[in-house]
């Protein structure tokens, strides 16, 4: 593997470009994981748009100095930040850029310090950091980077370790954030960051440096890790639904039940639930599950 002791502005641009490409290639999968803070399935799209804005700014202001390149990326991310994960991403790289400011090139120690400074900056912009999210993934990865930087002077090796640690932390996010465990997914924003880091180290290791590198080999290295394509929002377990009052059974047969009788049953079903929140105001996640119950065997 190519050893890389110093990273300059164009290396950094290559990293950002490939990171953005990995993210883009997997944006749909990241979307499907999105359950927190609002399960609207747009984390991947938001992060991708944010990263895209950063990379565009970087391309428009190419610089051989890493400090200038990081500043351009940071500015683009800030201007194009979308969604919570996008804003967090912009803060992470704002810290990175501040730390690298004024440098022509960075060695692995400086790179690790920049990642750590990014995390410190990101944690300052929130009252109550929620663990088990992109913040935790970034934090653990940066802490690991600082340790690794003492042992190796190869930036590619460092970045690969950062990616490995980020991926490992991502697998533990369901233990930290209950809503993730309930649905059985890892954090979407964290997953997005893991893809960005993957692009970073592969770029440094010389595995693809330009826009075309990924598109040329579809489904190879960039295949989503999870084969299933169903969205997390539809995977809430039915047995965890506390109030079962929105269940409906459709009767089929030779005799018909008058519409009126069917409708009179509903208030009693609601009473069972001991609450009076109208069924129309159920969160969409639960209603969508009930749709599948309705679609079940036609019996009563």
């Amino acid at each position, binding site marked *: 593997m190519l050893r890389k002791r110093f990273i300059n502005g164009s290396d950094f641009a290559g990293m950002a470009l490939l990171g953005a490409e990995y993210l883009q290639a997997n944006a749909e999968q990241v979307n499907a994981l999105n359950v927190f*803070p609002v399960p609207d399935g747009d984390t991947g799209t938001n992060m991708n748009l944010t990263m895209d804005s950063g990379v565009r700014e970087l391309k428009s202001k190419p610089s051989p100095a890493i400090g200038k390149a990081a500043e351009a990326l940071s500015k683009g991310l800030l201007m194009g930040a979308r969604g919570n994960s996008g*804003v967090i991403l912009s803060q992470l790289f704002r810290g990175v850029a501040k730390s690298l400011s004024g440098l022509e090139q960075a060695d692995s120690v400086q790179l690790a310090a920049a990642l750590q400074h990014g995390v410190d900056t990101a944690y*300052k912009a929130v009252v109550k950091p929620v663990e088990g999210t992109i913040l935790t993934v970034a934090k653990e990865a940066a802490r690991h980077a600082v340790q690794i930087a003492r042992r190796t002077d190869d930036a590619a090796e460092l970045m690969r370790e950062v990616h490995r640690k980020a991926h490992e932390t991502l697998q533990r996010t369901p233990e930290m954030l209950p809503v993730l465990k309930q649905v059985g997914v890892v954090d979407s924003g964290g997953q997005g960051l893991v893809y960005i880091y993957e692009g970073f180290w592969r770029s440094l290791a010389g595995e693809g440096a330009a826009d075309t590198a990924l598109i040329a080999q579809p489904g190879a290295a960039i295949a989503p890790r999870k084969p299933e394509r169903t969205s997390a929002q539809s995977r809430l377990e039915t047995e965890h639904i506390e109030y079962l009052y929105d269940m409906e059974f459709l009767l089929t047969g030779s005799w018909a039940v008058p519409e009126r009788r069917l409708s009179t049953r509903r208030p009693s079903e609601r*009473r069972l639930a001991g609450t*009076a*929140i109208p069924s129309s*105001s159920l*969160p969409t996640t639960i209603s969508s599950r009930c749709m599948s119950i309705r679609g079940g065997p036609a019996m009563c």
Partner: protein
Amino acid sequence: MPLQLSTELGKVYVTDECIAVIAGSAALDCYGLVGMASRKQLKDGIAELLGRDNLSRGVEVRRENDMVHIDLYIIVSYGTKISEVAHNIQAKVKYVLNEVIGLKVDHINIFVQGVRVSR
């Protein structure tokens, strides 16, 4: 006037204070928000003296012609995209209120009262 939920067994009332607390704590989950700006100095001052958590600080619940409006007075962190932070808070507060008490909020107005610059 509290929010009413009717059941066959009786009614459930959720006060505006309660709605404000839910909205306030939902907002605190959002990235980029570093604090709430108090609108009622006296009330919040007393709560602070008593050492109470004051999650409804900077939150006002208003009703106009059957419409529910929530005003949030916030302080954001310098260096974040303020419009996006505000938008994230609106989405989160709307989602949580609907999820927790089935309240459909018509408008969530965000007033950025301050920007905190850290060092």
